[in-house]
C-alpha cells in the first residue's frame, strides 16, 4: 500500500459553535409542519448497477435538515444516507444501496419550505444475498422491478447529533419507479 489519500478540513470556532446542538424542550412530532417529499427523477444504468437521481423538496411549513457527506463529483450534495430499496418476493422493501450509515450525519443542509435539492445514489446489483459490508447486510441480491428512495431527515442539530434519541424519526419515502432495462452490461 503506497497510495495515501489525505483529506483535511479547517473549521473556524465561531462556525462550529453556531452549529452545536443546544438542548431545549422537545419539538412535538408534526409531519405536516416538518415534511419532505422525495421523487425519483431519473434512473440511469451504470454497468450492472443503477444511478438513481432523486429530488427532495421541503413541502412542509418549517425548515428541515438533511444529512450530507460532502459533494458528489457532479457537484450535488451526497446525502447521508440516501436509501434505495426494492421489494423482495414477500413484498418487503430491502436496501440495495451501498452506504452503511454507521455514524450520524456530520454535516447537513437546511431546506426551507419550498426549497429543493437533487442528489443521487447507486443501487447495487449484489451478486448474492446477505452480502455484508461494514456493519450492514444487504439481504437482496440482483436488481429488478421497481426501486424506491428513502431518507431520514431532521428538525434540529440535536436530532442529527443523536438520531436515536428521537422516538419518532422523520423518514421520507418516494413512490417506486421502474428500473430501466440495461442496453449494455459493459458500460
Amino acid at each position: 500500500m503506497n497510495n495515501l489519500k489525505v483529506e483535511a478540513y479547517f473549521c473556524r470556532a465561531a462556525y462550529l459553535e453556531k452549529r452545536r446542538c443546544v438542548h431545549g424542550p422537545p419539538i412535538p412530532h408534526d409531519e405536516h409542519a416538518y415534511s419532505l417529499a422525495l421523487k425519483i427523477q431519473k434512473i440511469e444504468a451504470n454497468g450492472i448497477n443503477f444511478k438513481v437521481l432523486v429530488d427532495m423538496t421541503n413541502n412542509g411549513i418549517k425548515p428541515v435538515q438533511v444529512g450530507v457527506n460532502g459533494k458528489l463529483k457532479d457537484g450535488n450534495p451526497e446525502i447521508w444516507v440516501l436509501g434505495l430499496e426494492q421489494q423482495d418476493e414477500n413484498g418487503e422493501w430491502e436496501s440495495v444501496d451501498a452506504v452503511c450509515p454507521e455514524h450520524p450525519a456530520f454535516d447537513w443542509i437546511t431546506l426551507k419550505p419550498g426549497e429543493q435539492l437533487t442528489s443521487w445514489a447507486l443501487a447495487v446489483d449484489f451478486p448474492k444475498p446477505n452480502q455484508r459490508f461494514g456493519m450492514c447486510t444487504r439481504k437482496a441480491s440482483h436488481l429488478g422491478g421497481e426501486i424506491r428512495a428513502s431518507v431520514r431527515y431532521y428538525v434540529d442539530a440535536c436530532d442529527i447529533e443523536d438520531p436515536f434519541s428521537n422516538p419518532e424519526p422523520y423518514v421520507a419515502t418516494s413512490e417506486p419507479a421502474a428500473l430501466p432495462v440495461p442496453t449494455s452490461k459493459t458500460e
Partner: protein
Amino acid sequence: MIRNRVLATFGAILSIACPGFYGQQSSQTEQPESLVVVSGASDIVRSQTGLWNSDGCDELKYTASSPFPGNSALLTIASELRRQGWTEFRGESVPGPGIANKLGVWEHWKNVTGSRTYQRTGQWQNPAGDHVTYRLVFLACYE
C-alpha cells in the same frame, strides 16, 4: 452522547475505484496554512465546501505516494501544525468527517468493493478554538 457510542467507521463507499480516489482535479485557492500539503502530493483539490459544515469550512484533498502507515506524511503534518501553534485535540472529539472510534490510530474495515480501507483521523485545535481535522486513508485493493 451519540459521539461516544457510535462506531464511526465508514462502512462502505462504493464506486471508489482503486486506486484513483479523487480524479485528476487540481486547484489553487487561498486557504489556511493549517491545511498542509506534504511533499510529492498530487491530485490536489482545494475548496471551501468540506464534508463537514460545508459552507463554513475549508477542505483540502490530495494523494501522496507513501508506504503504509504513512509515517512520513504524519510527521510532516504534525510538525507543521505544532509550528503554527496547534495542539492535538484531546477532549471529546468534535464530529467531523471520518471520525472513527479513536483519534490518532489506524482503523480498518472491509468495504463494499471487497478491498480493505485503512483510516486514521486526527483533530487539532488552535488557541482561537478553530479545528482542523485530518483523515488519512489507504485502500488495500482486493486482499
